[in-house]
């Protein structure tokens, strides 16, 4: 009898422990989410991922000219992405040196951490309400909205649609055996917390569970970001939420 009681206690404890480890969007209704739960959904959940993107190397003027350009490209993802002091240093010692390794930090590709979020997913919208996060004033039509947070720089002149125009052709959603989906609009917002780029992909793409995975790829100036989302994980209350 004593053994049975002990087992029962252990089972209940284990179940409670497992329930406690289950993320909030699976274990609790939205009305019971704490602020911490909401923050987790907004930052680290199937709909929100911290990703390591790449800042591609800065081209030289010769390379730019050979490619038909002059001057460093400007705009979001180009200006403000190199840390101060990352340019070349000129040494007085011109007799010895590292040869081909004599190059500045900004002339090499380097990583940057960004956050991607499916803004239109219901759990994200509910969590944003809970966390009292100000909503981005996106004007574009309905669609799957993916936001990229954490892009360096700021103070760009132009409205969000104008700033996003040049990024529109440089993003795509990819699925196996299906045609790539291009965004119908891209808008760039500059809240105090940093630059946010919002991509709107058309609902006509009809992303379903059967697609299993969807890969988001975008180039924002010199920043290249790519992230795969597992659609099986992106269910909320038994429904795929994107």
């Amino acid at each position: 009898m004593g053994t049975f009681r002990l087992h029962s206690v252990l089972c209940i404890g284990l179940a409670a422990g497992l329930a406690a480890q289950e993320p909030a969007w699976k274990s609790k209704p939205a009305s019971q989410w704490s602020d911490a739960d909401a923050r987790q959904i907004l930052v680290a959940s199937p709909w929100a991922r911290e990703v390591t993107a790449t800042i591609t190397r800065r081209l030289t003027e010769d390379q730019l000219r050979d490619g038909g350009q002059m001057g460093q490209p400007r705009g979001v993802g180009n200006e403000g992405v190199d840390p101060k002091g990352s340019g070349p240093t000129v040494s007085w010692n011109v007799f010895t040196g590292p040869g081909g390794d004599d190059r500045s930090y900004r002339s090499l590709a380097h990583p940057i951490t960004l956050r991607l979020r499916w803004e239109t997913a219901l759990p994200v919208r509910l969590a944003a309400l809970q966390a009292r996060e100000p909503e981005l004033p996106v004007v574009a039509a309905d669609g799957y909205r993916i936001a990229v947070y954490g892009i360096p720089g700021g103070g760009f002149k132009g409205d969000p649609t104008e700033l996003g125009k040049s990024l529109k052709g440089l993003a795509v959603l990819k699925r196996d055996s299906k045609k790539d989906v291009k965004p119908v609009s891209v808008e760039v917002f500059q809240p105090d917390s940093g630059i946010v780029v919002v991509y709107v992909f058309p609902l006509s793409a009809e992303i379903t569970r059967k697609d299993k995975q969807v890969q988001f790829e975008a180039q924002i100036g010199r920043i290249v970001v790519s992230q795969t989302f597992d659609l099986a994980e992106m269910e909320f209350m038994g429904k795929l939420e994107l």
Partner: protein
Amino acid sequence: MNATSRNKDTVLDTKFFTPEIRFDTNYMEDFNQPIDHTIVGATESFRSGEVQIEQASVGGDFHWQNVRGRVLFMFGMFATTTPRNDASYGVGQWDLRGAYKYTSEAYGGYHFNVNHGLNVDAGIFVSYIGLFSYYNFDNWTYQPSYVSSNTPWFFNGVRVQWYPTNKLKIEPWFINGWQSYGKYNGHPGLGGQLLWQPTEWFKLVANQYGYGQDNLGLPHTERIHTDDSIEVRYYNKPQKAGLDKMAFTITFDAGCQYGGGIQCTGAASKNKDSFVGWMVYHRFWFHKDLLGLTLGGGDMSNFGRYLTLLPPINGADAVTGSPYFTENPGQRAHMWDSTVTLQYMPREYITWWGEVGYRHSDIPYFAGRGGVTPPGFPIGGSNGAPNQYSCMSGAPSGATDLPTATTNCASAGGVWFPDLRRSEAKVSVGVMVKF
């Protein structure tokens, strides 16, 4: 890649202007030991036994939104040695050589956001006919072969650069002529470049030229030319301590002149003007690109000598010509050369280099010990009449034909002849800087 600056970053730049500064100094020792220190037959090698500034350039790119402009001024030997090969200034008035001698590039234009870019530029811009860059810092060797050295370094006119993809450039030209500040005759020069770089390690450059009537005093003779190169980097282990990279280039050129009694094919005696040439270079990089070793050379056969650089005998240039080295239809010049070049590149903005080269000609062409300067003119280097035979006294003979000159110089010690040889061996060292 060859003809491309290896700089990885720009030291200074602003939203509106990116400066460019180049210094190129050399010391060359011609084993023919010309007494007048004059090296003949190249657009990169000019003086023997002297330290010379080949190029000192300042300038840069101006860019504001889609408006663009570039200027690169040019001082040093290039400021006189490049203009002297252009005879177009002999047409009409105003001093074109004086106007452009200190300018290697100067153009303004507009960038249209079409496909991957469309530029329209007008002014004087560099030509990549012959693969190598006009600026030695960008090249694998200092002295390129004839196919490069004897073909244009610049064009004056209008170009359109269209990038339908990020791997392809189509660049038509409407220019005054074949490396000419002005237009020789009635036709402008038309041509273009197709540049295709499908991968990082392969490049195809195809330049085509035609329609131009590029001979002073030959208004009905047109020139056509094709210049095609590939560059292949077939080995790349950038982090390897020893041999880290290998690449090669192959260039083939062909062209001719026709019309006005001149023809592209047939016997030399029937005023044949044609050009066939090639050059091949192989480059090795060592110790993470600290050292570069290039072996290569080429060959050219030029009937009519219309692309053979005129030796500066008694100060001769493309306008004056020289009775000592005529460039008449059907006259052949066949030459070959080879070089071994070692470049030491401790920093991205400096190259120390050394080169040994050998050049050969089937006709007397290179300066020998006696040089190409008439006696009695240690200062100035010319008696002022390069189009005439000179007498041994140094005075002009007053004649462009040898029998008359012989008669006229009888009382002046006879006719002087430059010391032209069939070969030239040369050792060179130098330093080049580019910011």
